[in-house]
């Protein structure tokens, strides 16, 4: 908390002091509101029930599935999103604004709505979904459906982080590298990517976390096999709090651990 010691308040007068107390008080309330439920959740888990949940094959499979599908969605987001972000940051083309506005949409639509849209687009009755099914890729009610839902809701976060990262690299650095004998692709690898990489990775961590936390879009596309958020909801509706809490705690733990490690890795790369 900001200090409100005596000499300071004497210097700035009572109104300044009241202002500081108001700001500090409101901030503290909000922090408590976020931290409270999470702490309460951690405290609610009994060690015995956590151990039981860890031993439950369905829980273990669900956590592995969540980590893997979120990882796959993030990888796909990187593969398509980094070139797109580069285009948005470096090139002025017709329709750039439209693309940017479009990429904001998945963040604003309610996630079950996103799920329904994806279901209509990727279901077996649709042209795209039918073609994919004939090619052997079942999406709806299968693992690819989970990845598709996660990708849809998380890719805007990655693209906007990567776009900012590219925009922050001075084009003159790239031009100097060109005069030193490198073609555009080599300059991208030797100059642009090393300079933008850290922020792009931070965006990827954010996208991964968003994927892990996704429920609404995934539940519409693929209820089974169950990712962590769906398993938690499923246990809650069938067995109540006692059944849901251990799964929820494990999921929270995995998400915290992975994002913490990723953040450390990203920070370590700082010059």
């Amino acid at each position: 908390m900001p200090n409100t010691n005596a000499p300071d308040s004497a210097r700035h007068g009572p109104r300044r002091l009241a202002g500081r107390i108001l700001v500090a008080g409101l901030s503290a309330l909000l922090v408590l509101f976020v931290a409270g439920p999470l702490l309460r959740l951690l405290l609610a888990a009994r060690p015995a029930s956590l151990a039981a949940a860890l031993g439950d094959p369905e829980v273990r499979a669900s956590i592995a599935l969540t980590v893997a599908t979120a990882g796959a969605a993030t990888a796909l987001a990187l593969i398509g999103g980094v070139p797109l972000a580069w285009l948005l940051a470096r090139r002025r083309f017709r329709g750039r604004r439209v693309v940017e506005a479009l990429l904001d949409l998945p963040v604003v639509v309610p996630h079950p709505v996103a799920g329904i849209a994806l279901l209509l687009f990727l279901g077996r009755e649709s042209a795209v979904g039918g073609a994919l099914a004939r090619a052997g890729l079942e999406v709806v009610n299968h693992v690819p459906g989970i990845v598709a839902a996660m990708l849809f809701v998380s890719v805007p976060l990655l693209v906007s982080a990567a776009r900012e990262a590219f925009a922050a690299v001075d084009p003159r650095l790239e031009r100097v590298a060109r005069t030193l004998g490198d073609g555009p692709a080599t300059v991208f690898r030797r100059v642009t990517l090393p300079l933008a990489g850290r922020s792009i990775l931070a965006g990827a961590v954010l996208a991964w976390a968003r994927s892990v936390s996704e429920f609404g879009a995934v539940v519409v596309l693929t209820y089974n096999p169950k990712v962590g958020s769906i398993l938690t909801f499923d246990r809650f509706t069938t067995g109540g709090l006692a059944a849901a809490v251990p799964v929820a705690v494990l999921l929270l733990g995995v998400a915290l651990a992975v994002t913490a490690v990723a953040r450390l890795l990203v920070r370590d790369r700082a010059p």
Partner: protein
Amino acid sequence: MIRLEGLTVDAGDFTLTDVTFDVPAGGYGLVIGPTGSGKTTLLESIAGHTRPRAGRVLLDDRDASGLPPEARGVGFVYQQYHLFPHLTVAENIGYGLRREGPAARRARVEALAAMLGIGDLLGRSVHRLSGGEQQRAAIARALAPRPRVLLLDEPFAALDPSTRRALRRELRALHARGGTTTRQGTHDFDEALRLGERVAVLADGRVAQAGTPEEVFRHPNSAFVARFIGAGNVIAGRVRWLGAPPADGESAAATFDAGAFVLEVVAERDGPAHAVLRPEDLTLSRLVPEGSARNHVRATVAVLERTGPVTLVHLDAGRPLVASLTTASVDALGLAPGVPVVATAKATAVLLV
């Protein structure tokens, strides 16, 4: 050799128009002009970062207009240096030596660093270099792949005067040794006189004048160029014939009416004009001298600007004038602020543009 033929480039909201200029092989050319006149765009066009709408860029007799920057053999130093922030000084200098073996690369980097006096900084991060050190590292980086052409964009602008002088000397020496054709953008005409063999004055994306620095300095072709290169006194006024107007291409005696005073001049055209009067072509005396020079302007000394052996005398003659005298003659004349003097210029020393 650098030759620009009618180069026209659209760069965003800025346009370079019909730029023609050349620097002979092994020569040192300068582009000067105020901020926003297009110096950086011009240099970037020579390097190949913009696609010209019309005209050609020739480098060593080869049309380079269609070549990408990496195929032009051009070294580039930006005003703000633009060292790669994720690399050390050595990695920056060696960036363009990717195709050479590690031993050859190392030797080249060390030789350049030693030549530029940054040999002991090679392991450093570029964030920990002073302005002068960054400048040297950027020059070394540009020279490392042995470019045929070196382009410098106001490379001295951010440096203190003594570092500036030292680097200027080194660059001149490097240049003499290496035989690289160099092209530099600057807004400092002093620099042009010291360094350049060819100079182009840029205004609004067009070449206002090109030639040797001496030509441009002696005969600025417009009031803009005269004012920009600091030719001293650029006076607006009107030319009137003393007798009959001369034939086309000939000149005749005339008067130049500056409002506050009238000069006798030799002119080719009458009507509105600017008179350029270089400070060293004005002589000062306490009394009206006798003899042929008849352009006597009564004035009062306003400020003395002593710069070692030469003193600039700022005069009030109804409009400001500046004269350049040896400090010895300033003292002999007993000049001081408030002292009335007569400024005299020969009619042939007044350049009309």
